[in-house]
């Protein structure tokens, strides 16, 4: 009799499951706050940088903060508000803080927890279960 004891190689299953988790996390980030397009992404980055720079500026000017000025003008014209550069800077900082500390951290935690659980799983069923993150609950 040719008797063999064979245990399934879980490495490719783990690799696939981790890729799935990463892809879903990225899609979740994009769905929540990233607008497609490199140019627009760059615009967000510049606006964020200006928002943090203006926090310590006692005498901000439109020239130094063109992205914030554009946002202020857009809101004031469209919504008939009277916001200042400092107001818009504060708004952007609040949004960034919420994303970094709230949704962004929750997505990171879910993604990392899933991948660590995938590493620890010893069966295909456990790997599959670990990769099945409920992103809508975050």
């Amino acid at each position, binding site marked *: 009799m*040719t*008797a*063999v004891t*064979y245990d*399934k*190689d*879980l490495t490719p299953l783990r690799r696939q499951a981790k890729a799935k988790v990463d892809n879903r996390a990225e899609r979740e980030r994009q769905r929540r706050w990233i607008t497609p397009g490199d140019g627009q992404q760059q615009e967000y980055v510049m606006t964020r940088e200006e928002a943090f720079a203006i926090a310590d500026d006692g005498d901000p000017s439109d020239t130094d903060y063109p992205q914030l000025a554009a946002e202020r003008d857009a809101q004031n014209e469209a919504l008939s508000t009277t916001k200042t550069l400092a107001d818009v800077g504060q708004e952007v900082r609040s949004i960034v803080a919420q994303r970094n500390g709230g949704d962004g951290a929750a997505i990171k935690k879910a993604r990392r927890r899933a991948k660590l659980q995938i590493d620890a799983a010893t069966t*295909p*069923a456990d790997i599959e279960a670990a990769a099945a993150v409920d992103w809508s609950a975050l």
Partner: protein
Amino acid sequence: MTNYVQFDPTTGEITGGRSGPRVDNPTAPQSGQEVLQTDQRAYASRDYVDTDTNEIKQRPTFDAFDKTEIAADGQDVATVSNLPEGTTVTVDDAQSWTVDDGVFAFSTNTPATYTVRVENWPYQVYETEITAT
């Protein structure tokens, strides 16, 4: 209508074929192949050409595993018997064993579903899943 069955003359494996009116000189086969003119229908997965008699014969079948559900304890085994010498058993397309003693016994410690394929020409390929829980 006549069937023209193209086959490998060294193994008898059917590698192609067509049907059509009987002709004296059927279409030339691919390099290294021969063509058998026959009234029989032939299917590559089921049949082969007996190169001694130039007859189409049905490929024999393996016995089935005695069970397809086992405990993942490294002890419980699923066994397939009456295997001809030189049979190849492949699990999950990952590892293969040559069986020369007629019996193959599979066990595992990892709960999962395993795809097991048994091959030995001209036997029909036998593939099944064994689930270990």
